[in-house]
């Protein structure tokens, strides 16, 4: 279980994962050695998994982002596995989630422009196996994006 000190360190680290250890320790009001010990334990326990770089796809020329909400034909026994394996090989897909609810699978898809999206949608998405229904939500603007946890 996490205690208040763990939470404080993780909160600070979440707000800036690249900050040097001495700065982090100073902000947390702890010695660098203590912070190191805490971080090592959090890694060992599988709480802290690491960090990843956030890619800004717009800078790379991908101006379209679409959220595809897919309902699968559940009468087919392996519908989930087969759909997901096929969707993984679509290069425009950057995220994939499965759900309990009206939607079975959601794909996050990026494209350079609308003709590019149309081509991917027709040739690579609609040809995926076991789709019963598909709905698209096109992103107009990202108002908030902060995957930090409210620790």
């Amino acid at each position, binding site marked *: 279980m*996490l205690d208040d000190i763990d*939470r404080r360190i*993780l909160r600070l*680290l*979440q707000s800036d*994962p*690249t900050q040097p250890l001495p700065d982090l320790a100073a902000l947390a009001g702890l010695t660098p050695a203590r912070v190191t010990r805490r971080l090592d334990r959090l890694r060992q*326990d*599988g*709480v*802290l*998994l*690491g*960090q*990843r*770089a*956030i*890619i*800004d*796809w717009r*800078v*790379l020329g*991908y101006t379209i982002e679409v*959220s595809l909400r897919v309902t699968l034909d559940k009468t087919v026994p392996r519908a989930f596995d087969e759909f997901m394996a096929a969707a*993984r090989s679509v*290069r*425009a*897909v*950057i*995220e*994939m*989630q*499965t*759900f*309990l*609810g*009206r*939607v079975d699978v*959601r794909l996050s898809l*990026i494209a350079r422009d609308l003709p590019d999206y149309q081509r991917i949608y027709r040739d690579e998405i609609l040809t995926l196996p076991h789709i019963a229904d598909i*709905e*698209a*939500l*096109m*992103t*107009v*603007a*990202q*108002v*908030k*994006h*902060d*995957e*930090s*946890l*409210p*620790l």
Partner: protein
Amino acid sequence: MNLDDIDHALLRAVALNADQSTTQLGQKLGLSQPATWRRLRRLQDAGVIAGRQLMLDAEKVGFGVTVFLGVKLATKGRISLEDFERAVSAIPEVQLVEHVLGLYDYRLRVVARDLADFERVLRRRVMTLPGVGNVEANVLLSEERLSGPL
């Protein structure tokens, strides 16, 4: 911005795991440490790498439930989108707010400690937002990130 194959490989690597040192990254890609550093620096300066995200096991830190919400506004035109956006963005459990076109007006990603906690967030914070109408909830079961067209 023009990227070559090595830039793509570098982005693929750091998008999955940015914990590696430039020396480790360089070794994997057959680059010297200074060359790796220069390339990463260039990608950061150009804004291709927009930042870093700490990866935590949400369940182990007490957030066992993630829900995606589709929100339809009830009284479009009469309420201000800015008011809705400001209020929804201020909810700490809301990680993502996207203005979308389609069946819903907004797409939200919400974390909660458990289903009871989610119900509290939904009833007290989300359903009371200005102008909120129909809300659809889907509980996240699994998630994977892919390197996309890199």
